[in-house]
């Protein structure tokens, strides 16, 4: 059983780069791929090589976009898996808990005051964390996790930060700050650049490694706090460790691509079907599956029609039915009573 899980994990790890690279060859621009390959190979060794349009498209548009989708997908999926465990609830995800709303407000606030990228990311991080603290306090979620209370608290906090963001846009200077805030809030993977990749990558590596490192101890947070304590774990410390890591990942991803919902809900759900509940597998599996998921969805979004479909629309189409299935399943099991 353990070995078959390891094998499955290796397959997923191998599939991720294969799928990621193959998505480079899908798109609205028709190309002769053997020529592009030869050209790419040549360009590595000839210093002033005259690149063709095809190669430039791949290098400056499709590759950064693919990398960004991989990072954001992996980060959001891991965050979702970790959050579900600490809230003892498979229906939570970053977007329902106010993380994204808080991060959006934080970023908009930084632009409002005309601050630079570092301040923008830091401010997004701070407000993402503030939002989740408020949800925690409002729902008392770590004491008695009821699906409804947690999600309703998340909705309230998201609405609050949404209103605060609207207020900022209302007061923003319509000739300079306002367009900047609006474009930033709309943000999408299509505007990927290598600078954006760097902004997303560093917090992702720190937060993602942190979540990966605690993957085993996370299991104990699925138990009651008293049980966790009896096994020598300090649940409060571990929970804050996870929340800060998640805030880091989500705020950086919101900073570069805006809000992409549902990834943190759908992917851990699939990972649990494949690997069971053990976070030793769920955390890394969510990362790889999340990366694959978003890179594929993004490819569909940019190549299905002549006009690009915003990626959030596609993830919502996939995510909402899965949420519905989960909700039915757990309501039927009397999930609330069991806690």
């Amino acid at each position, binding site marked *: *059983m*353990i070995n078959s899980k390891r094998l499955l994990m290796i397959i997923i790890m191998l599939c991720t780069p294969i799928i990621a690279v193959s998505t480079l060859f899908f798109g609205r621009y028709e190309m002769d791929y053997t020529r592009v390959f030869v050209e790419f190979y040549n360009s590595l060794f000839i210093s002033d090589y005259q690149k063709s349009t095809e190669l430039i498209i791949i290098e400056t548009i499709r590759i950064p976009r693919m990398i960004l989708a991989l990072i954001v997908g992996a980060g959001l999926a891991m965050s979702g898996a970790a959050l*579900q465990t600490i809230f003892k609830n*498979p229906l939570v995800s970053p977007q329902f808990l106010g993380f994204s709303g808080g991060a959006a407000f934080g970023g908009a606030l930084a632009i409002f005051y005309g601050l630079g990228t570092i301040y923008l990311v830091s401010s997004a991080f701070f407000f993402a964390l503030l939002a989740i603290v408020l949800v925690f306090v409002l729902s008392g979620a770590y004491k008695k996790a009821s699906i409804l209370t947690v999600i309703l608290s998340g909705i309230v906090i998201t609405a609050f930060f949404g209103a605060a963001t609207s207020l900022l846009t209302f007061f923003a200077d319509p000739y300079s700050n306002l367009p900047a805030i609006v474009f930033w809030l709309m943000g999408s993977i299509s505007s990927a650049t290598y600078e954006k990749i760097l902004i997303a990558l560093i917090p992702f590596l720190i937060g993602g490694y942190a979540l990966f490192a*605690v993957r085993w101890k996370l299991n*104990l947070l699925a138990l009651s706090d008293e049980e966790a304590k*009896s096994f020598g774990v300090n649940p409060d410390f571990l929970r804050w460790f996870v929340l800060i890591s998640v805030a880091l990942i989500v705020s950086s991803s919101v900073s570069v691509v805006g809000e992409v919902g549902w990834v943190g809900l759908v992917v851990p759900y699939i990972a649990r079907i494949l690997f069971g*509940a053990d976070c030793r597998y769920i955390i890394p599996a969510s990362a790889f599956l999340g990366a694959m998921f978003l890179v594929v969805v993004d490819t569909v979004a940019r190549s299905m029609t002549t006009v690009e479909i915003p990626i959030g629309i596609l993830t919502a189409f996939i995510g909402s039915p899965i949420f519905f299935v989960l909700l039915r399943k757990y309501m039927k099991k009397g999930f609330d009573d*069991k806690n």
Partner: protein
Amino acid sequence: MIKINDLGFYYKTDEWLFRDITFDIQQGDIVTILGPNGRGKTTFLKCLTGINKAKLGDVLLEGKAGFVPQLSTPPFGFSVLDIVLMGTSQSHSIFETISDENIDNARYWLKRVGMVHLEDKDFADLSGGQKQMVLIARALCYGRDVLILDEPSSALDLANQKKLLDLLNDISSDGTTIIMTTHFPNHALRVAHKTLMLFGDREFVFGDTKEVVNEDNLSKLFETKIKCVDYNLNGVFGSFAIPL
């Protein structure tokens, strides 16, 4: 060996659940804690495990103590083996992970409680009796010096109660000290070497089960008239208690 010195605890300031409790428990003994609901039995156990910090006095416990809480099922489909492995946590480091050795150890305890054939099953799908056995394996996996159980028999039918008591007897014969709460005096009479009865703040009795679990003490404890009846089953002597 466990030394309990002047132990006291309250949830609301100065509303003592118990106070000034002092006694020693010898290695390998089975100790039951008797008392009606709400008398602080579970709280007393949590003071022993360190989940609750004593407000007064202290507990000296040699070795590691595994705790079996009252039955609850965690969300997500953890397998039986996953659940037992959670007891593998051996250090306070949050970055700890597990080895194949830990998995073998978990299997050993699963075998010991007779549940190894169910290791891949979803824990949530087990019966109450099976869950109890798995939780005992998990606690032993964490610490085999002392096993502390909170109402292990309350959700079990008679056959499973017998299974449980036999298993506890078996484990204690290896030198594991067992401390459990129960509201069944008969379970104390059947397996326990020593019994603690919590009457209320500052008032308690601790001693050999045969001596302290008698009609007077039981009637006082449960505030109901209780009769003890001796039996002789093919040369095995014992007694049981029934409320009148």
